[in-house]
């Protein structure tokens, strides 16, 4: 079938690709006058309008797929008698939140949220700072919900429960205001105490 040509010598495949891929015609001047090309193009255009219609067709996903999948996994884990270690894998998959609006989709990455939190701590919260080494902020996004894990150093003399409560409240308020996402948890680990100016 490949290599098939019209009476005028034009390859059928090139006309099909022209319509399907939207590439420019190989011989535009010829096409405008050639009756064979014209008729075939019309035919292909008609077929492709149906292909495009198919892409717009609504497909109803059967309900309960998610539940059945999770049930099967749980059964499998039980049968194995152990749980698959996935710590390193799953959080890596969910690195952003998607906000679907009428004009398009907005994607907010976890590192954006982490930056907002870092800035807030640096600029507006005295008596506390992020632990310097390693990842002091870990943001996990599931759907539209954020969980943030913070590792902090508190200034000596500050009441730790007060500082922590203040940080938590400020993080929730600021992140929710700036991103439109929900903050589900702010987990705070106080890792050290330091004397100011030390």
């Amino acid at each position, binding site marked *: 079938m490949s290599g098939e040509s019209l009476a005028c010598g034009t390859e059928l495949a090139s006309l*099909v690709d022209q319509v399907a891929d939207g590439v420019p015609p190989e011989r535009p001047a010829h096409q405008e006058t050639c009756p064979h090309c014209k008729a075939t193009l019309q*035919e292909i255009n008609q077929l492709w309008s149906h292909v495009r219609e198919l892409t717009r067709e609504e497909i109803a*996903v059967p309900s309960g797929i998610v539940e059945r999948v999770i049930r*099967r996994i749980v059964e499998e884990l039980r049968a194995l008698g152990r749980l698959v270690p996935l710590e390193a894998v*799953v959080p890596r*998959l969910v690195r952003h939140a998607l906000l679907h609006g009428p004009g398009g989709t907005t994607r907010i990455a976890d590192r954006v949220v982490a930056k907002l939190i870092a800035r807030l701590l640096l600029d507006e919260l005295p008596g506390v700072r992020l632990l310097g080494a390693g990842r002091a902020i870990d943001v996990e996004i599931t759907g539209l919900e954020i969980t943030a894990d913070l590792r902090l150093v508190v200034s000596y003399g500050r009441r730790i429960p007060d500082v922590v409560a203040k940080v938590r409240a400020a993080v929730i308020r600021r992140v929710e205001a700036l991103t439109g996402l929900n903050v589900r948890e702010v987990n705070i680990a106080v890792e050290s105490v330091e004397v100011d100016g030390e």
Partner: protein
Amino acid sequence: MGRTAAGEELEFPPSAETKHLAAFEKLVRRNQTVVYRVALRMLGNEAEAEDATQDTFVQAWRALPHFRGESSFETWLYRIVTNRCLNLLRSHRSTEPLLETHEASSGRPNHLAEARSELDALKDAIGRLPPDQRATLVLRELEGLSYEQIAHVLGTTVPAVKGRLHRARLELLHAMRGWR
């Protein structure tokens, strides 16, 4: 105690594992439409498409430790579901009709065509494509993947994808000519 989507009590406290399972559940929820859509276009049968969708996600869960993030998670799912469907088609399709509707139309497409829409005829024609061509066509025309993505999904080369797509498109054109 942790809970699954099914509301079932798990025998372990809310641990890292339950959190991961909860995260995976969200991934399934978010991607189920894409996976089911591909399976339905490939298999042409709702019950089989649902089974293939479930199998795809269970397989994805098992293979998660091997997911390296080289492709997007979605592309990775495309790969699993497409291969699942191709294996199904190769294993048991030699004698059976490809689509439920084929039983009614095979052999006498022109006669029965009058009662059916051109869109149904097109679905039939897609269902009669050889599996490799069908997969290529579904991923390209219906899912809008690039040639490179399709080559990755099917484990082949870009020229091979182009070749299959060529044949699939011409095949469809001929099928629809026969239908009219």
